[in-house]
């Protein structure tokens, strides 16, 4: 269609709409009727809402004759002769206020305050503030502050709610505008089951795309290895899964794990996993608020294509000192919260695995002649601390510290075979040997974050943060396969982010809430490799390489949350970013919509994202990049990854017992790095090295897309609490640089996932049963066998023909879990014990499949299986 015709058509439509509006005639004819009655008649007739107090209209009467088309004029007519005037708040919504005799100006008021946990005094971020009379609400910011400004100065009935807490109804006066302190009481799962308004998770989230889960619920989620683990628990949410059966990163809506951003008190954590990704560094007990943004983020978040996990550590109990000690199957932990005087509080937690304590870090061994010491040390530990100082109601300063590391220290002979039948002592399986391997590998994250929050005025809230986050890994390997030969490798990776964040919340109008901010972060990416391969005393190869990269990223954003109607909220945002080193300014628009239809909520969101860092690893050598997370920045020669995400959804309570939500999403990305040779795996001694150019040579620029539907149903029946989620979706990738003509299933493409969990508390006992069924992961299935010879071999070698990557799928995965607990008190201590059965049915899920082309007979196929039934336990004491 030609542009002129399109414009003409649009103008015609607009004129028709305007004409229709102008045609609506308003007729008012009141003769000395009570003003309240007049307002009610007019409200019904014209579908207009008035907000007023009984006191305002008492004893007032109205006389008015009006015929016209302007609602405002009609209302002015009704109010003429009274001491009241009407102010339009939004479309078809008016507030009555008294006319000031002096200046005829109505001063506007506001409602503002902080929402806190009644028990611990923690500020609650993301609590809902809802004015039922105006069908208008807001949420608290990261400091627990909220403000609704430009309100007519009357009393309002306000409901304050937060997931996992009992809702509070109260009356707040807008004319006085005091700084309110709302204290919410935490409730148990049983109480939540009886609570009509408190959802298990928030289907009616104000911010589109966000999932908030109360940490109390997360701690009840069953998962491996039976300990309170945030990232393990998140996979119970629709669209979230672990990349492996119980290991590897999180996959959100089919995207790769390196497309997720993990924030700890607003600072990034590059590798949030311990124990080869078995457990995460996010121990759920130390967090007060967890938000997971899937696909579309608000403008304040960015830097990754798929998801953002924003976890906020507790400030520490302000009322009384509390402590908890727990021992699980793999680790023990301790958490302490305490007030420090009237204005400060602190939280400290520590966790450490103890397997090295059980089997011993060192094993003295002897064969009667030679005495040696073998090493069998592995542990992970993390420590977190946060101190918060509140010099006044308007200011808060907090300092968060986190340090977590894994240490693997081995010296073992090669010919080791565990034989449980002969002895249960580990050292009995070992003996001195001239041929051994040593591994001394450390990796971990270290984070310091200072944050200052300041309520500058009723309408202006400022947050500034300065952080330093680093990821350090060191892999040292020494292998002695032959007395006269050895392999030595030392590999070091150091990523460091130093950043400044500034966020400003501005509440200019009742219908607008503006958030804007600035980020500056300097990133350093260093790695170093020193390797020596001594084949014979005279044949020695050395590799000494070093890579040093750095980049500065500058980000600015602005976002307006606009409520044009009582039922509609629009969140418009724009995020601009640029990286030093030759990339161009990138502007990412963001849009979120939420429509409240009374019995249902529609939500939609969309936006563009940019990711300036790529995660890569060498795919040849097993001497380096074994456990390290190595990232490299975009540059003039390496484009950043870009993505566009969109989602629409509906959430509705069927009954008071059943709440259901359905979301559809679509996602596309380009500029992502995909392996040039998918089948290439680390199976060699030598690799091309760690220099950026050679590493990038193992990857090609690719594209990906994903779409799907996610459904979540929560059912509360008496003491039973259950939720069922089903996700159907596909994710594909393609490498145009390799002449991929069509998309292929992506590595983590899972067409269907069904999960269900049931919880029940009976007195002091707690029970839960959980199950997950999903389609198997894609796999590359050979379709034929053939043979090709070589000039240096006498017989041709047999190969398997694999024309397309991920053309098949492993068998479906199913796992059932069971958890039972009991708690009792000893004086002031609450003791709880819990047992868990992971993979209760001992199903041998297929997690990999190997094909053997050798021989003249049919191709042999061998499956690799996941974890069997594993019993787990945990004992916890809370003081």
């Amino acid at each position, binding site marked *: 269609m030609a542009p002129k015709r399109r414009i003409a058509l649009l103008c015609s439509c607009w004129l028709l709409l305007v004409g229709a509006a102008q045609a609506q005639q308003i007729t008012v004819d009141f003769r000395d009727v009570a003003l309240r009655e007049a307002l009610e008649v007019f409200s019904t007739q014209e579908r207009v809402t008035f907000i007023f107090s009984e006191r305002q209209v008492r004893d007032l009467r109205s006389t008015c004759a009006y015929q016209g088309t302007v609602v405002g004029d009609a209302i002015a007519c009704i109010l003429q002769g009274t001491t009241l005037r009407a102010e339009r708040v939004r479309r078809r919504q008016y507030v009555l206020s008294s006319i000031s005799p002096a200046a005829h100006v109505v001063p506007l008021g506001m409602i503002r305050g902080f929402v806190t946990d009644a028990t611990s005094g923690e500020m609650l971020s993301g609590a809902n503030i809802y004015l039922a009379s105006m069908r208008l609400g807001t949420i608290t910011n990261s400091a627990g502050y909220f403000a609704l400004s430009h309100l007519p100065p009357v009393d309002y009935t306000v409901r304050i709610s937060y997931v996992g807490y009992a809702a509070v109804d109260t009356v707040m006066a807008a004319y006085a505008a005091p700084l309110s302190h709302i204290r919410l009481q935490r409730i148990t799962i049983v109480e939540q089951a009886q609570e009509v308004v408190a959802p298990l998770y928030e289907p009616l989230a104000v911010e589109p795309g966000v999932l908030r889960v109360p940490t109390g619920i997360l701690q009840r989620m069953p998962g491996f290895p039976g300990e309170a683990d945030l990232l393990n628990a998140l996979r119970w949410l629709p669209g979230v899964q672990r990349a492996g059966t*119980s290991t590897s990163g999180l996959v959100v809506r089919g995207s790769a794990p390196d497309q997720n951003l993990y924030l700890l008190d607003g600072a990034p954590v590059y590798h949030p996993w311990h124990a080869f990704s078995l457990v995460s560094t996010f121990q759920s007990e130390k967090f007060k608020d967890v938000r997971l943004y899937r696909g579309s983020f608000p403008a304040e978040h960015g830097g990754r294509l798929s998801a953002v996990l924003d976890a906020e550590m507790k400030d520490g109990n302000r009322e009384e000192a509390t402590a908890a000690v727990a021992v699980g199957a793999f680790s023990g932990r301790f958490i302490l919260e305490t007030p420090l005087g009237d204005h400060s509080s602190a939280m400290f937690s520590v966790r450490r695995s103890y397997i090295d304590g059980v089997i011993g870090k060192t094993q003295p061994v002897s064969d009667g002649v030679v005495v040696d010491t073998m090493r069998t040390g592995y542990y992970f530990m993390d420590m977190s601390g946060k101190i918060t100082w509140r010099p006044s109601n308007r200011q808060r300063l907090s300092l968060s510290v986190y340090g977590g590391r894994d240490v693997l220290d081995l010296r073992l002979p090669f010919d080791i075979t565990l034989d449980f039948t002969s002895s249960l002592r580990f050292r009995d399986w070992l003996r001195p040997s001239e041929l051994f391997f040593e591994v001394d590998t450390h990796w971990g994250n270290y984070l310091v974050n200072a944050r200052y929050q300041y309520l500058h005025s009723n309408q202006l809230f400022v947050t500034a943060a300065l952080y330093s986050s680093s990821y350090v890994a060191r892999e040292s390997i020494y292998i002695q396969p032959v007395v006269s030969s050895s392999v030595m490798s030392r590999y070091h990776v150091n990523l460091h982010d130093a950043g400044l964040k500034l966020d400003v919340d501005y509440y200019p109008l009742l219908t607008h809430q503006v958030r804007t901010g600035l980020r500056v972060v300097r990133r350093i990416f260093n790695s170093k490799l020193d390797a020596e391969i001594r084949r014979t005393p005279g*044949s020695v190869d050395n590799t000494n390489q070093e890579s040093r990269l750095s980049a500065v990223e500058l980000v600015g954003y602005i976002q307006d949350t606009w409520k044009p109607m009582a039922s509609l909220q629009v969140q418009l945002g724009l995020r601009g970013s640029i990286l030093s080193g030759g990339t161009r300014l990138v502007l990412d628009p963001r849009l979120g919509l939420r429509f409240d239809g009374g019995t249902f909520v529609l939500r939609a969101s969309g936006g563009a994202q940019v990711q300036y860092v790529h995660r890569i690893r060498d795919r040849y050598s097993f001497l380096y990049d074994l456990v390290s997370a190595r990232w490299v920045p975009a540059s003039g020669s390496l484009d950043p990854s870009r993505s566009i995400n969109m989602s629409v959804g509906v959430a509705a309570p069927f009954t008071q017992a059943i709440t259901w939500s359905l979301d559809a999403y679509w996602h596309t990305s380009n500029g992502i790095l995909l392996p040039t040779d998918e089948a290439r795996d680390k*199976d060699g001694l030598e690799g091309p090295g760690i220099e950026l150019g050679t590493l990038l040579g193992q990857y090609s620029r690719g594209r990906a897309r994903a779409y799907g539907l996610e459904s979540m149903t929560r059912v509360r029946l008496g003491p039973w609490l259950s939720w069922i989620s089903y996700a159907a979706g596909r994710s594909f990738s393609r490498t145009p640089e390799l002449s991929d003509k069509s998309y292929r299933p992506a590595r983590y493409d899972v067409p269907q996932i069904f999960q269900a969990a049931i919880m029940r508390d009976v007195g002091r006992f707690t029970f839960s049963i959980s199950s997950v069924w999903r389609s198997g992961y894609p796999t590359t*299935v050979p379709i034929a*066998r053939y043979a090709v010879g070589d000039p*240096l071999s006498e017989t*041709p070698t047999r190969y398997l023909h694999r024309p397309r990557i991920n053309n098949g799928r492993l068998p479906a995965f199913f796992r059932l879990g069971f958890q039972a607990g009991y708690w009792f008190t000893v004086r002031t201590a609450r003791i709880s014990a819990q047992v868990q059965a992971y993979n209760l049915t001992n199903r041998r899920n297929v997690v990999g499949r190997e094909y053997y082309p050798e021989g003249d007979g049919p191709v042999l196929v061998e499956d690799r299986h996941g974890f069997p039934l594993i019993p787990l336990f945990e004992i916890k004491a809370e003081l």
Partner: protein
Amino acid sequence: MRPKIIAFLVLMSAGCDAVHQSSPTLLVVESYVASQESLPVVHLRQTRPLGDPYVLGASTAAAGATVSVAMDSLWFDYAMDEPGVYEPLVDHLVLPQAELSLDVAWQGQRAAATTRVPPVLTLDSVLVVAGEEPVSGLILDSLFIDPAQIDTIRFDSLRTGASEGFVYLVEVTMQWRVDYAEEGLDGAYWVRTQLRPDLADRTRLDEYFLRPEQLLKERHIARDAAGRRIWTGVYAVPVDAADAPMPVHRLRVALVRSTQAYAQFVSGSDNPRRREPPTNITGALGIFAGVSVDSFSVVVQ
């Protein structure tokens, strides 16, 4: 009711996954062109489904094909001599740097490829140095567990597949001259070296920690004082005891100069269970490549 059925179908179709695992029989070509030798023999085979046996010979040969090879715009016809083995009807010498084309028609499939013949390669010297006595060494079947597959570690055994024994280490140095200009694209040849002892017992120790073979760009290989390219490899000879003499065995030392197509083929053929070598043939699997091979056999004692 109908909207619910439609919604259900949409949900289910989103979860459907089309899997294509069947394949028509494909043509497989194998032909290596050596300089200063006759026109190459062309081996034609066919693919077989995974469930079928794969016995080299008549059952896997591609019989009845029309094969022709062109050298310097002159086409030579071929005829099948043995099942799947096609030989030229006319004998002709292949000259170094010649451009050759292959054209095959078989059961409606057409395969075509081109290659350049590298310069002749001649081994200048081979030096074999064996250790005087055996040393303790690892006898290895498979050692390394992929960290990404840690889910699957068995709990009853670490199953490293390793045991200790004794090995003689044998160091072999080979030298050859380069008689062509190594500059520019024409000089971008690859060299594959190989030490192949004729031993009853082998150990995968060779592949992991020693160096019985290597694939390198020729111009990246070190030179000796006389300007010759020089390469040293090591292999292991397992023995039963610390005082056992080294078994007398025959060692074949081989050197191949090739184009990039053959180098990619070799690089991609190192793990047939996981991957297949890339093909340089349009319309078929396999390889059609110019090579220059020299080998030398020696008895090591």
